[in-house]
Every structure is written in structure tokens, then in C-alpha cells.
């Protein structure tokens, strides 16, 4: 999957519309972790996150039967998730007046959140080895240290990152142009 994963998710939703179990399974595996992280980041509660995650999948399943055209499947999923999160906060505020609006305001902007979720889905689509390289870099390791940890040469590490970047950048540029 490339950075521009719109077509990929659209195709999965279209197949799900035709009751393709494999597509449902694939979509579940592709977005479960990114979506969990996305929701947890805004909710900060493990149980509620799980509830919302399940709700998102069930709503998606219900709606996917009624929709024929999927122009932006990723945006579709993102909207459902955001709506459920907002719904949770509204319910919480109605039950408890002490809740401060700042909790909701602290949530990053919609565009940032959407991009973050997109990168999470992309990260999840990387191979296990690629994920390890990205993870080490994210934890602050230098390329030399990564080469040492992975027991490969420095040039191999550089080539690995290059492959990941080229793959993702091409998709990202296409998305920006669209």
C-alpha cells in the first residue's frame, strides 16, 4: 500500500459492499491498530476506546451495505470515528457538568488528525522489518546505531529507508496533486 491509500480502501469497501468476507477481514486488520491509536489519542481511556472502535466497525459495516460509490473510503472511516468520539464527549458532558471544554479543544485540528491516521495506516501496512527500522529511528537511534542493532551495514540501512520513502513519497505527491 502506498501513501495514497484512498483507492486501496475504496476497493476494500466496494468488495465489502458485495459481502466479501476476505475484504472485511483485510480492512479490519489494516485499520484496527491505527484506529485504536487514533481513538485512544483523543479519549485516553482504554475501555471507551475499545467500545468506540467496535462501534466504528459496526457502523461502517451497516453503512457500507447502503452505499454504492466510495469516492473517499478513508475519509468515510475517519468521519465515522470522529463522530463517535464527539458523540462520546457530548454524552459525557451531559452527564457531568464538570467536564471542561478544553478537553475537547485540546484535540488537534481535523486535517492534522486525518493525516495522522493516514500515516498510522501506512505504518501498519509496512513489513515487519520496515516497521522495526522506522521504530528505531522514532526512538532516537542514529543510522549507525540502527545498523549496529539490526546487524547490517550502514548502506543497507540507508537503502531500507530510501525504499520506504520512495514508496510513500510517490503516493503522497500523487495525493497532494489530486
Amino acid at each position: 500500500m502506498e501513501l495514497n491509500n484512498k483507492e486501496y480502501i475504496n476497493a476494500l469497501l466496494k468488495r465489502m459492499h458485495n459481502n466479501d468476507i476476505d475484504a472485511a477481514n483485510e480492512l479490519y486488520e489494516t485499520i484496527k491498530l491505527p484506529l485504536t491509536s487514533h481513538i485512544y489519542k483523543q479519549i485516553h481511556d482504554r475501555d471507551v476506546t475499545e467500545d468506540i472502535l467496535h462501534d466504528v466497525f459496526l457502523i461502517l459495516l451497516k453503512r457500507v451495505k447502503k452505499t454504492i460509490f466510495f469516492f473517499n473510503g478513508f475519509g468515510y472511516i475517519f468521519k465515522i470515528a470522529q463522530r463517535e468520539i464527539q458523540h462520546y464527549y457530548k454524552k459525557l458532558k451531559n452527564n457531568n457538568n464538570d467536564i471542561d471544554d478544553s478537553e475537547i479543544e485540546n484535540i488537534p485540528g481535523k486535517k492534522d488528525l486525518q493525516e495522522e491516521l493516514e500515516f498510522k495506516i501506512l505504518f501498519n501496512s509496512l513489513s515487519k522489518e520496515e516497521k522495526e527500522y522506522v521504530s528505531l529511528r522514532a526512538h532516537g537511534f542514529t543510522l549507525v546505531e540502527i545498523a549496529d542493532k539490526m546487524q547490517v551495514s550502514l548502506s543497507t540501512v540507508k537503502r531500507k529507508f530510501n525504499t520506504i520513502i520512495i514508496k510513500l513519497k510517490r503516493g503522497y505527491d500523487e495525493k497532494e496533486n489530486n
Partner: protein
Amino acid sequence: MKKKITENEILDKLGKACLEMENAPKFEDDSFKNKYISEISKNNARFFNRKLIFSLINSALALILIITSLVLFIPRDTKRYTDNDDEITKLTVTIDEFIESVPENFSYLIEINTDQINRLYVYKMQNNTMACLINYDDESYMFVTFTKNFLYSEQNLFNGENTNNTNTDKYNMYETFNEVKVGRKTYIDYYLWIETNTYDYYINIKKSTTDKQNLFKEKIFENI
């Protein structure tokens, strides 16, 4: 022009996504996934049932459409003789040809288009004689025979009265043919109009082989 994302930015964003996902809770329990997948299976079953019902409805509709088309569009000649019909042509002497055209031992159902006579049944008799059984109403029948000399005799089968007439000047015959198409088959609809001293017979001959006619045929031969 939009600013293009740099390599480092991609790796940073990926790294951030990676860290957030590492910190997110892990739900390893597959019970929800099974439920979610089973929903799709249920949808599949429902979809199959719906598809089956739709296909049945479609088949029924198609059948109704075909039947309606057959009823409405198959050309059927319903043209009947009327007094003003120009297509009726006067025959000179064609009674012999007509009698010749009737197959041996074959009966025809003849419908007569007059007020007085309900039906007339024509049979080819021996000696090139055409016999007609005339049904005036449900209960009385008249038996008429025509010969090639236009002599005819009428016999009431119920009261036994006989009328013999030899006045050939009065006998005029007219005929017309119509083609009747039913499906891919074509039938000949033969109209014969016989004027006698007593009655004018409008005769429409159609092929028929019902038992009822055989019964009449037996009666005719019994009375000859």
C-alpha cells in the same frame, strides 16, 4: 504551488505514528472480529435470499410479459363476413371444388353467422355430396345435403319433415378465405355463404376434431 513533503518529514510522521501506536492499547481478543465477520456472513445469507426472491420475481414478471405479448401481439384474424364486405366474391360453380377439397372422413366445425342459425356442421358424404347439419337453436337441428347439381334436401331430424327443392336458380354461393396466424401456425379460415330458398347460410369453416362433432357425424349417418 503546494509544498512537497520532504523525506525527513515522511520519516518523522511515520515515526510519530509508530510511537503513538506503540502506546495505544492492544486488543488481542478476537471475539469482536468474529462477530464483525459473522455480520458479513449474515449479510451474505440475506443477500442470497434477496437475490433469490428478486430472481423469482423477475422470472414471474418476464413470464407475465411473455404471456401478455402473446395475447396482445399475435396476429389473429378476427375478420368475419358482413353484408358490406367487398372481399366476398361470388362463385360461379365452385361447389364441386369445395366438396372435392373436403378430405375423406373428416369433419369440420362450421359456424354460421346468421340470426336464425347457431351452427352448421358440414360433412363430406359419399357420391360427392356435402352434408350440413344445421343447428337452429340448442334443441332443433336441420339436416341439409347439397349435391353438385345444386339440388338440396332439408330434413328436420326431430319431426321428420322433408323438403326437397330443385329450383337451382335460387342457389347462390359466395366464398372467401382468410389466413389466420396463431403463433407460427397458419390456418385457413374459409367462409361460405349459401343462399337457398329457405335460408341464407353464412358458413365459416374451421378445422375441429372434437368428440361432439363425431357424435353429430354418427347421427347424420344414422339418418341418411
